[in-house]
């Protein structure tokens, strides 16, 4: 057992922290209030290599391992969960799916662009296919060796910013999720229409869209992975994004705890700082305990992933626990702020709204619990249904 970060990981973490404090902290509130994605910030992040964090160097990436990626997501999320999730969707869901399933040609064509700062999206969810991606209505019709893509995708993160969409469509509708294929679709394709920007409770600096694909022609070379082989791509992408989101939850919780502890040390009531009150001390202590437990689960999950071991169940556990801890921490720290916590002038109210998303995206709490239970019953030879 060795719980220390390598020298390289420490160096990266310091660099991430430095970047987050200098570049992200000053713009996060503005991005939320104006509901504008921090495009300039993302360019700076790209220049640092963060948008290609886990992409190998041969494709223009920074070649980080998963553990290092969790440090990146954590440090960014301390100050801006929108930015952390924007990058996590781009990296863990979209870009890494190309690395995972792409042909050599696809990797060479797309990965340097995506590592260089062009954003990508992962278009899976549909109005009637949220927790149940088996019921996709988007179709990719095959004709003379090429495909015609038709359907509507909702809740597409980075939908309006992405240069490349990784789109999932049914190529054999009768086979449910075993009949899904993945396609790489360029933003500029004439049949792609970026629609409604989702007005959200939190994560207001994210660009979450409805995207329409109107019976457009996608050449066969844009099929990502095998025909009807989309589902394993989705599952592996889910594992990665859950790990990334768990790390983001960790960072958001740490950010919230810092805000609450600072406020408690400064706010005076009853003749002294409210940090002198046992009720406040207990809130802070409980959050700190949960955050440390979460950190170790996140790092352990990343360590499994880096070792090439099956980490799916752990990714679900970490994401589920992370979402809950981030929410509980933000909730308690908002309470520490009293009336100020309800004011838009204080960062904690943004954090409280932002972290609520973590219990929904990348698989709801209910789906994560199902995934964990399924793994346990699988070992007993029992297939369970949601």
């Amino acid at each position, binding site marked *: 057992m060795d719980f220390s970060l390598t020298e390289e990981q420490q160096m990266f973490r310091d660099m991430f922290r430095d970047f987050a404090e200098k570049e992200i902290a000053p713009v996060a509130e503005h991005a939320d209030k104006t509901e504008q994605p921090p495009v300039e910030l993302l360019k700076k992040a790209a220049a640092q290599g963060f948008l290609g964090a886990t992409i190998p160097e041969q494709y223009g990436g920074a070649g980080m391992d998963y553990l290092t990626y969790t440090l990146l997501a954590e440090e960014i999320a301390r100050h801006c969960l929108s930015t952390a999730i924007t990058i996590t969707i781009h990296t863990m869901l979209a870009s890494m799916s190309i690395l995972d399933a792409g042909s050599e040609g696809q990797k060479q064509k797309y990965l340097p662009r995506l590592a260089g700062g062009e954003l990508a999206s992962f278009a899976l969810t549909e109005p009637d296919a949220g927790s149940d991606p088996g019921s996709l209505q988007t179709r990719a019709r095959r004709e003379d060796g090429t495909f015609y893509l038709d359907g509507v995708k909702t809740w597409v993160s980075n939908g309006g910013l992405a240069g490349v969409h990784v789109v999932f469509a049914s190529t054999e509708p009768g086979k449910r999720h075993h009949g899904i294929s993945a396609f790489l679709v360029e933003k500029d394709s004439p049949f792609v229409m970026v629609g409604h920007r989702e007005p959200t409770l939190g994560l207001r600096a994210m660009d979450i869209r409805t995207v329409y694909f109107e019976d457009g022609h996608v050449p066969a070379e844009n099929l990502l992975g095998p025909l009807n082989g989309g589902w394993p791509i989705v599952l592996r992408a889910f594992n990665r994004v859950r790990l990334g989101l768990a790390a983001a939850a960790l960072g958001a919780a740490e950010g919230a705890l810092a805000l609450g502890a600072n406020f408690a040390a400064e706010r005076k009531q009853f003749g002294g700082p409210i940090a002198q009150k046992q009720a406040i001390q207990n809130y802070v202590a409980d959050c700190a305990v949960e955050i440390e437990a979460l950190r170790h689960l996140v790092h352990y999950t990343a360590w499994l992933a880096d070792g090439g071991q099956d980490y799916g169940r752990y990714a679900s556990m970490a994401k589920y626990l992370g979402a809950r801890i981030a929410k509980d921490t933000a909730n308690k720290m908002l309470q520490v702020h009293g009336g100020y916590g309800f004011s838009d002038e204080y960062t904690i109210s943004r954090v409280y709204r932002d972290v609520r*998303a973590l219990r929904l995206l990348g698989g709801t709490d209910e789906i994560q619990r199902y995934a964990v239970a399924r793994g346990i019953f699988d070992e007993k030879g029992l297939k369970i249904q949601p």
Partner: protein
Amino acid sequence: MDFTFSPEHVALRRMIREFCEEELRPRAKEVDRAGRVDPEVMRMMGSLGFFGVPFAQVYGGMGAGETGYCILMEELNRVCPSTATIVGAHIGIGAMSLYLDGSPELKRKYLPDLCAGKKIAAFALTEPNAGSDAAGIQLRATLEGDSYFLDGQKMWITNGPIADVVMTLAITDPALGARGGATVFAVEREWKGYSIGKPEKKMGLHGSPTSLLNFDEVRVPKENVVGQVGLGFVTFMKTLDVGRTSLGAATVGGGQAALEASLRWVKARSQFGRPIAHMQSIQFMLADMAAEIEALRSLVYRTAWLVDNGKPFTKEAGMCKLLGSEIASRCIDRALQIHGALGFSRDFPLERGWRDARIGEIFEGTNEIQRIVIASELLQEVGVRIRP
């Protein structure tokens, strides 16, 4: 024991619900978006007598007591928490402090207009340095001849921007401080030296305006002292007890709305080939919501009964507010979870309820203060006096 509502209270609830469904619900989204309640709604509520529900008819009220007032708050908050908050601050703490302790003359002067909604009331206790530590207030009232001069600042005042009469707690005897040296004054909006700060930008309750109030040597005639000089803190604490009961009632409505929305949604939304109502994770969330709301409902109306029958209710009022706000937040959070991503969208009403509900755990005494109130009552019964 009799758990039925009187025919008058049943009729009152029916009338309020009809108004809420027909007039309030269609406007609730716009109230949040525009950040104000439609003046037409305020006028209608005035003519229906909503602003005077608990008060005696001799002052222009409806005479429906705390129980009637709780019914009003439950129904309003079920549909539009911003509107409920305006009405609650007006009745439950603003006009209530005057009603509980004001002289007959002062009540006759203000209550009829307040009950009719021609004037709006506010309750000004909190200051920049006196939140949970309410006894730490510094706003000064100095007696000169027949008048007091008020100087200082109040903050987070619900209805601040729209109130015509503000019940203001000020220190009249600095040597004694809040306990024994504070007095309540009824201050009118038009008086010289009184000014209103910018409305606060808040996470929720966008339609319920909140602001700072500045008092720059505001002259208040002696007749506008509410209750006894020096006993203002007692008046305000008594008032808050009544207010807390009705806040509990509001949270019953908030929780109920969340449950109703969830029941509609789980029937309509299908995943994995069937309505999500068939998922046990969903069913158990619904069951927990309903169980908590029912327990809360019983507590709230029992406490209202204590109030209406002149029995002690401080501890129970604290429990109504503490449990109610936490139950409402939990229920609305579960409802949001049940709605999935749509719960997170501002195109749907769930997230508004979620933002609106959170302040319930903070205002009119944070839940930590409620726990202190409850513990202090409990410990007093065994002979221990505690300080926060």
